């Protein structure tokens, strides 16, 4: 065990999936021409005023309830003041002293396989800034304000995470929850889901926290893990070399896999937060909260437990299947439509199907093989029309768009040979052709049974029922 204990807290920025911005009617759609989705409010024109999009309150409330948090009866928008070209008003509207969500929690599985509680300090609503672009503009910088005013929910964890792996597990859990709730698309390439990590180390056993560094803008699970691990190593090295970690903001460079200093504590802005006088406090009553609670879907932890209890599948598989609501729905749809066992469905979905999806870079919603079609394939394994091995071949054909399982089995003549006399003839042929191995087998080398099965399967192009082959072989070899 290392002499150092790692302490990590994450700030996850989740873009809320509203159609219009948090304080204006402009569209939030991604990828439009620069500055075509910024209205006068987003541009911070003189005289304009923000008006809160009520949908974001509903979404934040959903999140609060999902993580067992307190949804504040009264929360207040504040101004965070700083100058930057992509920040049109010279301040960002955020929540400071009174956030909408406080004191939540979620559970991850730690390295020992135990459930671990991670506290959520708060989650607050805020507007995103625009972005600066430097490509193709010579010595100038361009500003695109399409993103300015996009609603964000910033979710701040307690410093309860003890490794990069735990940080990733926590971040994945948040990712799963926000997508279950339908409050974010969680798209990391488009920046809809990103995080900052506060990382420090301290000698194991020490109560007092070490000095932390804040790693900015980590936009993939892999980068979170790599950046934190790099930073842990860096901090330990600094201390072991007799130096001191300084409080600062650091940027992760994924090309070089290193973090480097962006600004020190001394250079940090004084944001001069104060309540935004243009916006009223957000007031939420118990009836509202209950009405939102009614709309909550089954959440991942509950679903995982139900999959184990109801379908009898392995817990680990249930975790994988419930990582996304769409995948879980797919699984349940297949189970409902097939005579095959749920564990068999789980195996196929996690194995062949997920593999094909990954290879094709597709989401489950984009699978060319529908749940119903997959159920049709699994039915043919169940009723012994085909073997599991042939099923893979049929699945590939289905994936390629060659039709439904039954059509492919028919067209390719993949139907399993279950006629005993046909199999017997094949077995006889194999026995006759391998007198040496037969002698060895009879002399006690029983492992050779596999060899004989293989030979028979080869003769039949894999179509013989392997159970039957086994049985007949054993009979004949006495």
């Amino acid at each position, binding site marked *: 065990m290392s002499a150092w204990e790692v302490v990590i807290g994450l700030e996850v920025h989740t873009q809320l999936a509203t159609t219009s911005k948090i304080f204006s009617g402009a569209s939030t759609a991604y990828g439009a021409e620069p500055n075509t989705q910024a209205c006068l409010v987003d*541009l911070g*024109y003189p005289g304009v*005023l923000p*008006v809160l999009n009520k949908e974001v309150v509903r979404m934040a409330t959903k999140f609060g309830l999902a993580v067992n948090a307190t949804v504040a009866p009264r929360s207040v928008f504040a101004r965070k003041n700083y100058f930057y*070209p992509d920040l049109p008003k*010279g301040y960002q509207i955020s929540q400071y002293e009174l956030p909408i969500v406080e004191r939540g929690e979620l559970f991850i599985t730690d390295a020992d396989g135990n459930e671990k509680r991670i506290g959520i300090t708060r989650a607050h609503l805020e507007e995103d800034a625009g972005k600066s672009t430097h490509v193709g503009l010579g010595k100038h910088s361009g500003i695109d304000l399409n993103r300015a005013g996009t609603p964000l929910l910033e979710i701040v964890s307690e410093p309860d995470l003890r490794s990069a792996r735990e940080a990733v597990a926590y971040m994945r859990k948040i990712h799963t929850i926000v997508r279950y709730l339908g409050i974010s698309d969680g798209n990391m390439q488009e920046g809809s889901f990103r995080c900052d990590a506060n990382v420090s180390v301290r000698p194991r056993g020490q109560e007092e926290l070490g000095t932390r560094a804040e790693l900015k803008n980590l936009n993939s699970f892999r980068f979170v893990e790599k950046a934190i691990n790099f930073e842990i190593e860096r901090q330990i090295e600094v201390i072991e070399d007799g130096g001191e970690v300084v409080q600062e903001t650091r940027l992760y460079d994924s090309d070089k896999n290193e973090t480097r200093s962006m600004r020190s504590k001394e250079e940090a802005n004084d944001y*001069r937060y*104060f309540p935004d*006088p243009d916006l009223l406090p957000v007031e939420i009553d118990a009836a509202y909260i209950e009405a939102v609670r009614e709309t909550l879907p089954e959440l991942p932890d509950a679903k995982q437990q139900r999959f184990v209890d109801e379908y009898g599948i392995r817990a680990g598989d249930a975790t994988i299947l419930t990582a996304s609501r769409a995948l879980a729905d797919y699984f349940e749809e297949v189970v409902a439509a097939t005579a095959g066992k749920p564990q068999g469905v789980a195996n196929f979905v996690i194995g062949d199907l997920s593999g094909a999806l990954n290879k094709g870079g597709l989401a489950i919603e984009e699978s060319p093989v529908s749940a119903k079609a997959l159920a049709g394939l699994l039915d043919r394994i169940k009723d012994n029309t085909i073997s599991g091995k042939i099923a893979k071949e049929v699945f590939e054909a289905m994936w390629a768009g060659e039709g439904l399982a039954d059509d492919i089995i028919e067209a390719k003549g993949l139907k399993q040979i279950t006629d005993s006399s046909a199999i017997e003839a094949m077995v006889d042929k194999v026995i006759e052709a391998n007198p040496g191995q037969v002698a060895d087998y009879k002399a006690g080398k029983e492992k050779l049974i596999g060899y004989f099965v293989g030979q028979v399967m080869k003769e039949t192009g894999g179509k013989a029922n392997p159970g039957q082959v086994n049985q007949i072989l054993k009979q004949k070899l006495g």
Partner: protein
Amino acid sequence: MSRDLYQQTLTELAAGLEGGDFSCVELTEALLGRVEQHNEALNAFVTVMSEQALAAAKRADEARAAGNGGVLNGLPLVHKDIFCTRGVLTTCGSRMLEDFVSPYDATIVERLASAGAVVLGKTNMDEFAMGSSNETSYFGPVRNPWNADCSPGGSSGGSAAAVAARLAPAATGTDTGGSIRQPAALTGTVGLKPTYGRVSRYGMIAFASSLDQAGVITRSSADAALLLGVMAGFDERDSTSIDHPVPDYTAALSQSLDGLRVGIVKQHFDEGLDAQTGAAVREALSVLEANGATLTEVDLPNIDLSVPTYYVVAPAECSSNLSRFDGVRFGHRTENPEDLFDLYCSSRGEGFGAEVKRRIMTGTYVLSAGYYDAYYLKAQQVRHLIADDFKKAFETVDVIAGPTAPTPAFKLGDKTDDPITMYLNDIYTIGANLAGLPGISTPCGLVDGLPVGLHLVGPHWGEETLLRCAHNYEQLSAWHFACPGDFE
């Protein structure tokens, strides 16, 4: 028809237009002629909108002929240059917005226009409404029509001077600490600041968002009632505007003073008040009393803290509100900045005047880490105390009456070196802004040939009571008819 058109109030002009005594085009031409003749001496306008005004007048005449037109059809007015007007300069009295043409109309601009009002131009003002004398305007000070060496007050000084000099029968203004009422008092006009949230702030360039409120400067309370009825009401684009029914303000005027309980605040008559101004105000109070009102003393124990409280809250909000003027998207941009930091510093350094900079710095300071609690938070607490004082007082009285400003108009240049003395000019008006209450100033006398104002403050949504009280007083006193000699 003996009186010239420019001498008539909005209410009189409405009747004349309705009766076909003159056309809106004739009226507009007459007033544009007045502006042409007198504005150079007064510097009340930043922009004269002759062409647009005549086109609007023509449309108003056509609408009337067709039997259409809103309640203000064909009635001329001017806008303080703080209100955004599409396609027309909106400078806010600043070099920062010297060339700024707004791409949209403020809500009140829109509402007045759809009621048929004809806009003659945009009026001069203290830069970003920060000032009490109109001397902080980038476009130079406005002169008081009663004495060209004097200030008309501020920040709505251009609006007040234009109305007092009969260049326009009515004007819009904004009031953050007295910026409608004080210039109204100093120019012998009527100035109404409504309850916070009564009139939309959308399109009104923000100074201090929690204090700013749009209102009007007119020559009578009846005219103020007419305009307020159009301007007031909920606006979904302003979250701080309140969805409260808009009454018939004009109907409220016909009620007498009988039974009206008028409160007097002792501190409003202490040593800071000019003796002759005090005498004029006391005389006005006795007129109210003689005509059915009762006078009682009320206590506002924390009112003395209103000026220091205001000068923490207002600069704090302004320091943030004015951050958007950074030279990036609109407004003044320095030439050839060396880098981003220089772009900010030089654009803002060149674009803002001294008073604006002073307030941005004050506001930045009071919001800074380590000072926030001692200044901003403390000021907010005191603000609550002041609001509570008013609330308590309004349990026993219907309006609180006193002087609008401590002295009549002062000489231009007199107070420019001493911001504190300048700030004290708003000592009687600031309380209403801190508490979000409506206030009105109506002329109540002349001191050495300069007008002074009677100030009335009401409870939230008390505009009807204020208008009723002021209107009754105007009928009994007629000070509001007084016209500066050079502009008769």
